[in-house]
C-alpha cells in the first residue's frame, strides 16, 4: 500500500485564509466562557464539561465533534438553556443565556415535531408563541416550508413524513423564529446514509441563503469537515476543548472535495484527536477466546 503524502491540516490557500480573516472580523454571536458542568451520579460527582471557551461569529458554521461521552449533548443543551451550567457563562449577543428562548433555535436528534399539528401548524407554533397573528404566521410559515421544499406536504401530519422530511420541517420550524443561532444536536444521526448526504447539502444551501449562525453537533468526521468553517474538537473525561480546527477546504463545498488533500489532511488530524493511539488497558474490547479450532485447511481471514 502506498501512503499518500498529505499537506498539514493547518495549511490554507490564500482564498481560504482571507475568508477566515474576514470571518473573524464579524461580530461575535455566541460566546462561551469558562463553562463547566458537573452532576451527581451513582459514581459520585462527574465532570461532564470543564473549562470550555469558544466564540462563534455571525454566519459562521461551527461543528462540535468528540468521542462519545465527551459532553457534546450537554454542551448544546446548556447553550439552548435546557440545562444550567455549574460554572462559567454563555453569552448570546453579549447577554447571558439563562433559560430556553426562541432566539436560539434547536433541532434535536430525535423527531420532536408535534404529532397533533400539521406541518404548517408545526412551523407556525413558534410564531404564534411570539404573539404574531395567525394570518401573518401562516404566510411566513409557508415561506419556510417552501425553503425546505415541503410545500406539497404543508397539510400532512408528521407521522405521514419520512425521517428526512421530519427533520426538514424541524429546521423550518426553528428558523421561522428567526433565531440568532441554530443549534443542531446530531440532527441527521438517525437518517440513512443517502438521505443524510442530501440533508447535508440542503442545510449548506439554506445556510448560504439566510443570515444564520449554526452550531452543529456530530460524531461523523466527514459530516463535520463537509459542513463546518471551524470544528471544535472535545475530548472525553472530562469534556474539554482539545482543539479548534479551521477547515482548509474551500467553499462552496462539494462532494468531490471528500478526496481533496485538504479534506483528507483535516480528517487525518481529527482521527488522531478522536482516536488517539490506544494504550493497552482497553476494558471494553472483545475477548478473543477461540471457541472452536479453525481447521488448518482454512486460510486465515487476513
Amino acid at each position, binding site marked *: 500500500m502506498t501512503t499518500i503524502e498529505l499537506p498539514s491540516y493547518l495549511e490554507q490557500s490564500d482564498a481560504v485564509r482571507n475568508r477566515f480573516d474576514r470571518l473573524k472580523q464579524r461580530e461575535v454571536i455566541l460566546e462561551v466562557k469558562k463553562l463547566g458542568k458537573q452532576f451527581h451520579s451513582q459514581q459520585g460527582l462527574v465532570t461532564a464539561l470543564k473549562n470550555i471557551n469558544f466564540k462563534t461569529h455571525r454566519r459562521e458554521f461551527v461543528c462540535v465533534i468528540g468521542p462519545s461521552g465527551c459532553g457534546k449533548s450537554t454542551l448544546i443543551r446548556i447553550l439552548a438553556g435546557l440545562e444550567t451550567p455549574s460554572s462559567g457563562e454563555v453569552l448570546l449577543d453579549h447577554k447571558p443565556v439563562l433559560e430556553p428562548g426562541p432566539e436560539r433555535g434547536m433541532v434535536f436528534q430525535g423527531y*420532536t415535531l*408535534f404529532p397533533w399539528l400539521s406541518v404548517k401548524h408545526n412551523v407556525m407554533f413558534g410564531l404564534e408563541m411570539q404573539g404574531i397573528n395567525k394570518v401573518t404566521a401562516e404566510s411566513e410559515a409557508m415561506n419556510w416550508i417552501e425553503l425546505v421544499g415541503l410545500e406539497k406536504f404543508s397539510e400532512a401530519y408528521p407521522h405521514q413524513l419520512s425521517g428526512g422530511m421530519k427533520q426538514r420541517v424541524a429546521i423550518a420550524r*426553528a428558523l421561522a*423564529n428567526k433565531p440568532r443561532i441554530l443549534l443542531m444536536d446530531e440532527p441527521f444521526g438517525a437518517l440513512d446514509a443517502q438521505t443524510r448526504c442530501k440533508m447535508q447539502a440542503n442545510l449548506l444551501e439554506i445556510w448560504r441563503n439566510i443570515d444564520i449562525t449554526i452550531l452543529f453537533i456530530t460524531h461523523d468526521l466527514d459530516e463535520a469537515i463537509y459542513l463546518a468553517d471551524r470544528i471544535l474538537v472535545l475530548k472525553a473525561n472530562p469534556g474539554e476543548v482539545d482543539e479548534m480546527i479551521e477547515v482548509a477546504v474551500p467553499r462552496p463545498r462539494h462532494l468531490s472535495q471528500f478526496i481533496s488533500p485538504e479534506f483528507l489532511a483535516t480528517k487525518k488530524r481529527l482521527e488522531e484527536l478522536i482516536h488517539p493511539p490506544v494504550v493497552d488497558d482497553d476494558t471494553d474490547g472483545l475477548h478473543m477466546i477461540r471457541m472452536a479450532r479453525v481447521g488448518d485447511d482454512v486460510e486465515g481471514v487476513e
Partner: protein
Amino acid sequence: MSFLLPILVWSLVSYVPFLWHPKVEIADPGSVSWFKSGMLVDRDVFAEQQQLATQQQLAVPEGFRANPIYLPAPHEVAIAFYTAFTTAPTRSSEQWLHESLWHSIQVIFWGFTLSSLLGVPIGILCGTYVAISKLHEPFIEFFRYLPAPAFGALAVAILGIHDGPKIAIIFIGTFFQQVLIIANTTRKLDVALLEAALTLGAKKLRLLFRVVVPGILPDLYRDQRILLGWAWTYLIVAELIGTSSGITWFITQQARYKNFDNVYAAIAMIGIIGIVTDLLLAQLGKRLFPWEKTQAKV
C-alpha cells in the same frame, strides 16, 4: 365472532336434553300427591317416585328432563329481552324497563361527568407539576384503596336516599383512579416535545395548553373510555344503596319473582349498552385524532 362460542355452548346445554339437564319437569303428576304439573324436581327424586308408583300399581307420573330455573334457554332470554320493553310494570308505581335503564344511564352520566370535571384537570396538573403531585397523590393513593361501596351508608346519611348517594359512589369509585391514571399518562408525554416547545418560545400556561394537553389527548381519551367501563361496574353497587333503583332494581325484582329470563335479558342489556358506547367512542376517537398513527390503539 368471539360471541359465537359462548352462545353455542349455551345453546347446546339448553337444547340437547342429555347434556346436563339435572331436573325433571312434571308433565303429569300421576298419583304422587305433592307433584304438580310444571314443577321442577331433581332427577333421582323423580325416578324414585316413578318406581314407587309402578310398584304400587298406581298412576305413574310423567315428565321430561329440564334445566334448573336459573338457566333459561337463549330463545327465552331473547323473548324476554323483547317483552321486557313491551310489558307494562305490574304495579303502576313501578317503572318500565326502559325507564329503569334511562335512570341508570343518568346516574352513570352524572357520576362520571362530575368525576371527570375534577379528576381530569387535577390529573393533568399532577402529571405536569411535581409540587402538585406531591401535594395530592399520597392522599389519593391512600384513598383509592378504600372500597367505594364502603361509603354507601355514609353517602346516604349525607346525601339522602335518592340519586345523590348513587352518584357519589360512582364518583368515589372513579375519581381517585382517574387522577392517578391521568397523572401517569401525562408523565408519559415525551419530554423532548416539551423541550422543543421551550426552545420555540413556549412558556408556562401556553406550554400546558398548547403542548401538554394536545400531546396527551388521544391517551386521555383512551383512559376515559376505560374509566367509563369502571363506572358501570360501580353502578350495581350504587343502585343498591338507599332506595333501590334503575336496572339493578329491575334485576333484583325479577330475580325475586324467579323470572330469570328477564334477569339474563337485563344483564345482557348492560353489556350491550357498554360495548355499543365503547365502539361509538372508538369511532369518534378515530375522527377526533387523525394524527394518531395506529388506529388500532384508539
